[in-house]
């Protein structure tokens, strides 16, 4: 978080600043009155369930979709009228691998370099291959690469034209933990150099590696801020119940506690249960009959980011169904 703090001391420049974005497909509002801002040099996590409008929002930011209403700027350029200039400075990594499978690694990178009008495309591609650790494999077809390498190549192609902003749409889906960690280290190194990143993800550990996160469900932005701010914003009070070695299985408890007033969320975590409520007093009341049950150990805990998200998702379901 040091990089982010440094930037907070400087006057933070806003790279994404959009207001009231709305987009419908076939009469269904996919993005609904969404406003968000991303500051320069920050890694902004974009979270939300499947179909919540993350991809649509990202596409609107880089000019691939035209919003039905709303406006804003990306890197200071109007997203409605200056998408050509945005395209030049934004690296967009699509959810699905979208480089040419029948071109080699080198050919793909040279293509990108040429389209962006970089001087010496061959040299640029060569340097990128070295940086990616793909030297000696440059003639391999992109379609033959494993998931992790495809993702590295896609990121390499994205940053080749030296963009000011990266838009990454679920870049680590289907990638093993080691490759994910390497990927995030790279993202942090890029951000430290001043690159801004908006990255959508489903992984909690990835969300926690972001400077700021935005949570979106049913096309609406439900929470935005640092991880701590988002957790605090839900106002959850959490208890962790675990069974002692000889005690009963806590998972039976889940059925009993479910639907009791005051308990807004129950989720099993390994051998224990997270029981959370938005109001401390009613939560205490709800669990009181179970607290003295033998074989159970109750502990007041801090809500995790996942608790916060599940609660946000639950609440948005209540609102939209």
């Amino acid at each position, binding site marked *: 978080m040091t990089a982010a703090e440094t930037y907070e001391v400087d006057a933070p420049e806003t790279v994404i600043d959009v207001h009231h974005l709305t987009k419908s497909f076939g009469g269904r509002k996919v993005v609904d009155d969404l406003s968000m801002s991303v500051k320069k040099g920050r890694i902004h996590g974009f979270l939300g369930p499947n179909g919540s409008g993350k991809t649509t929002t990202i*596409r609107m930011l*880089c*000019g*691939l*979709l*035209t919003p039905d209403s709303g406006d804003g700027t990306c*890197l200071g350029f109007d997203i409605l009228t200056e*998408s*050509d*200039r945005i*395209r*030049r*400075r*934004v690296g*967009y990594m*699509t959810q*699905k*691998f*979208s*480089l*040419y*499978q*029948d*071109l080699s690694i080198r*050919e793909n990178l*040279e*293509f*990108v370099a*040429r*389209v*962006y*009008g*970089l*001087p010496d*495309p061959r040299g640029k591609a060569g340097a990128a291959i070295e*940086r990616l650790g793909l030297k000696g494999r440059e003639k391999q077809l992109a379609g033959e690469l494993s998931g992790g390498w495809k993702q590295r190549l896609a990121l390499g192609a994205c*940053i080749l*034209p*030296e*963009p*000011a902003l990266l838009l990454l749409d679920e870049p680590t889906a289907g990638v093993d933990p080691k490759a994910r960690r390497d990927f995030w280290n*790279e993202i942090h*190194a*890029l951000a430290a*150099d*001043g*690159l801004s990143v908006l990255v959508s993800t489903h992984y909690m550990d990835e969300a926690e590696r972001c400077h700021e996160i935005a949570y979106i469900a049913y096309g609406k932005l439900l929470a935005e801020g640092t991880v701590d701010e988002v957790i605090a914003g839900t106002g959850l009070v959490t208890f962790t119940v675990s069974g002692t070695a000889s005690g009963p299985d806590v998972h039976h408890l889940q059925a009993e506690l479910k639907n009791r007033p005051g308990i807004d969320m129950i989720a099993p975590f390994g051998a224990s249960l997270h029981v959370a409520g938005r109001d401390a007093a009613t939560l205490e009341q709800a669990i009181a009959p179970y607290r003295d049950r033998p074989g159970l150990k109750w502990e007041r805990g801090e809500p995790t980011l996942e608790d916060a998200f599940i609660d946000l998702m639950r609440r948005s379901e209540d609102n939209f169904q």
Partner: protein
Amino acid sequence: MTTARGTNGNGASGGGSFGRFWAMTVKEFIQMTRDRITLATMVMLPIMQLFLFGFAINTTPHNLPTAVLMRENSDVGRSILAALKNTDFFEVKTVITRAEDMDALLQSGEALFVVEIPEGFERSLRRGDSPSLLVAADATDPVAASSALGALPGILSTALENDRQVAFAEPVKPAFQIVQHRRYNPAGSSTLNIVPGLLGTILTMTLLIFTALSVTREVERGTMENLLSMPIKPLEIMLGKIAPYVLIGLVQALVIIGVGILVFRVPILGDPLSLAAATSLFVITNLSIGYTFSTIAANQLQAVQMAMMFFLPNILLSGFMFPFAGMPNWAQWIGEALPLTHYIRIVRAVMLKGASIETLAYDTLALVGLMAVAMLIAVRRFRRTLD
């Protein structure tokens, strides 16, 4: 990883518009060469079609099964029979003497032609009565029937005149006269006509499909989203996708013309440069039309279907299969809107009549016009967003 952010100013840096076009061209060219089967098809298809059309499909019939009905046994009759036997057109299968047999032969298809020498033919000929010689033809295949019928009077009058010189001391004014003068194609060989037509047809068929697939393929493979997020403009994408196939089209044309000259003895009487210029123009026009389909179709299958829909009138209404002048006005108007019509006119004129492209300004301009319209529609239709 070191990254300086946004060092490049406007989109015009580096290679600019040409650079982006070139990027696309190189990419398409590599993808084209990587698809070996398609590449082989591109070269083999013209050769295969040329041989099929050139050898198997021939509208100038040969050895048509013919019967001769001899109602009298005369010298004139025998010389007509001999003349018929001497030509390639007819193959005299049987000589019959009863009229009833004629119908049976025609109906069964044993004979497509029956030449009847009526009773008293020789006598009335010698009297100068201008007698009739009856020919019954199976006209179910009008092309075969009419071309053979067209050849018949010539054969018969030659036979009769030869006969007269033997039979009479002084030549008599012939009873009928047929003046036939086949220009540009004296042998009446349809191969000569078909090779130039085929050049245009094969190019239309293959080139339309190449570009018809190009945009839909990017959409189906998911690469379009990435391409659209890059700073490349619709015109640059279009030209970049067309350029590599111009080369393929010209190679195909070269193969077809080469085989035409070597195997079918088709001449190039006119200026080869005119032919090259017209061919390049025609190739680009077809690629543009195929590309336009690609921007309209939702998937590759639709694109191929649209290309086929366009291909059919090209074949039927361009004058390739049927004489252009014989079509009704509305069909001629449609024909005028098809690039193949104009190209066939140019190629026949240049190859067989020795014309140069300057004398074919109308058809050349028509090709330019069709190309411009297709490109305009394609660039306007191409959506830069995924909306």
